[in-house]
């Protein structure tokens, strides 16, 4: 028993344990996702996060210690984002052919995402600080946090809302699009990418190349549009 607890003390302080936990949790959630015929509601990000959170709470581990191991996975988000240039390049003829429609759709989606989130939270009596925190939630995390800071919100809570929005959009987006009969992969990709940034893009890439490329494009342009426009619009209303 002593050996076991010594081993635990050693392992829980090394990055290996939390890195492995992240991978194993994700493998398990992916297995369930495949078993469930890739139903969007069985989103593997959500499943893996629930398992990790349960283990951290169960073992009394704080997030900072967990992140020491998990940062190696987290770090790859940057290179993965850069690599979205490849699907974008491969689909470039499609993008060029409907550039105006794409820009209009992303801009309108961007305004709808921020505007309706702020309106609903405001109607429910949320504080100005909370409104500023929720406004940039459809944008990829680093940009969303910077915008929240500029508007007077809580950047670290914004980061959480960004992830929740991402998972929500990846889960509900395909169901909503099916329901209203939008089958065009370009429109589906743009809708998921604008609403759910990288998490939506990751989901779109597993379904269809065109949808993946359009989602990646939407993620990048929505980040740019929100960063430029939201602070100006905010000044008009608050």
């Amino acid at each position: 028993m002593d050996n076991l607890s010594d081993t635990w003390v050693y392992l829980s302080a090394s990055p290996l344990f939390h890195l492995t936990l992240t991978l194993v949790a994700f493998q398990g959630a992916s297995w369930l996702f495949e078993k469930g015929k890739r139903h969007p509601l069985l989103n593997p990000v959500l499943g893996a996060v629930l398992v990790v959170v349960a283990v951290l709470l169960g073992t009394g581990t704080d997030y900072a210690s967990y992140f020491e191991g998990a940062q190696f996975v987290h770090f790859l988000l940057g290179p993965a984002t850069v690599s979205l240039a490849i699907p974008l390049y491969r689909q470039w003829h499609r993008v060029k052919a409907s550039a105006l429609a794409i820009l209009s759709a992303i801009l309108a989606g961007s305004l709808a995402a921020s505007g309706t989130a702020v309106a609903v939270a405001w109607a429910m009596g949320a504080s100005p600080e909370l409104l500023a925190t929720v406004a940039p939630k459809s944008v990829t995390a680093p940009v969303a946090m910077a915008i929240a800071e500029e508007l007077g919100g809580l950047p670290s809570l914004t980061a959480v809302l960004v992830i929740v929005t991402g998972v929500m959009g990846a889960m509900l987006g395909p169901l909503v699009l099916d329901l209203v009969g939008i089958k065009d992969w370009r429109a589906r990709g743009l809708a998921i990418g604008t609403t759910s940034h990288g998490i939506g893009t990751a989901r779109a890439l597993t379904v269809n190349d065109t949808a993946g490329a359009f989602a990646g494009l939407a993620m990048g342009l929505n980040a740019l549009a929100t960063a430029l426009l939201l602070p100006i619009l905010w000044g008009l209303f608050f």
Partner: protein
Amino acid sequence: MLNYLTLIFVCQLLGEMITGALGLPIPGPVLGMVLLFGFLMWRGDVPSPLGEVAGSLQRAMSLLFVPAGAGVILHAHLLADALLPLGLALLVSTVLAVLVTGFIMIWLSKGQADG
């Protein structure tokens, strides 16, 4: 394959340096994506090892959000306090943003053949 992984890292690094130096409102990796896209346009095709590296990264992309997602425990109490306004705001805006983006794309690209 390693040379193309290096290229991806170089694009990200340049992206971070340029956005940082000029104070641009986009993340370094997004500018890195634009730089790599420029390289592909200049080259005129995707070298197959680069396609393989990118494919591996993208197949694993969902996994990469798990560490940030677990950060939800840092704000459990704040989230619990504002569960209803936040939950409803996210739910309504997610569904509406999907619909608005999707329908506008369909309407404005109507009549254009896909491809």
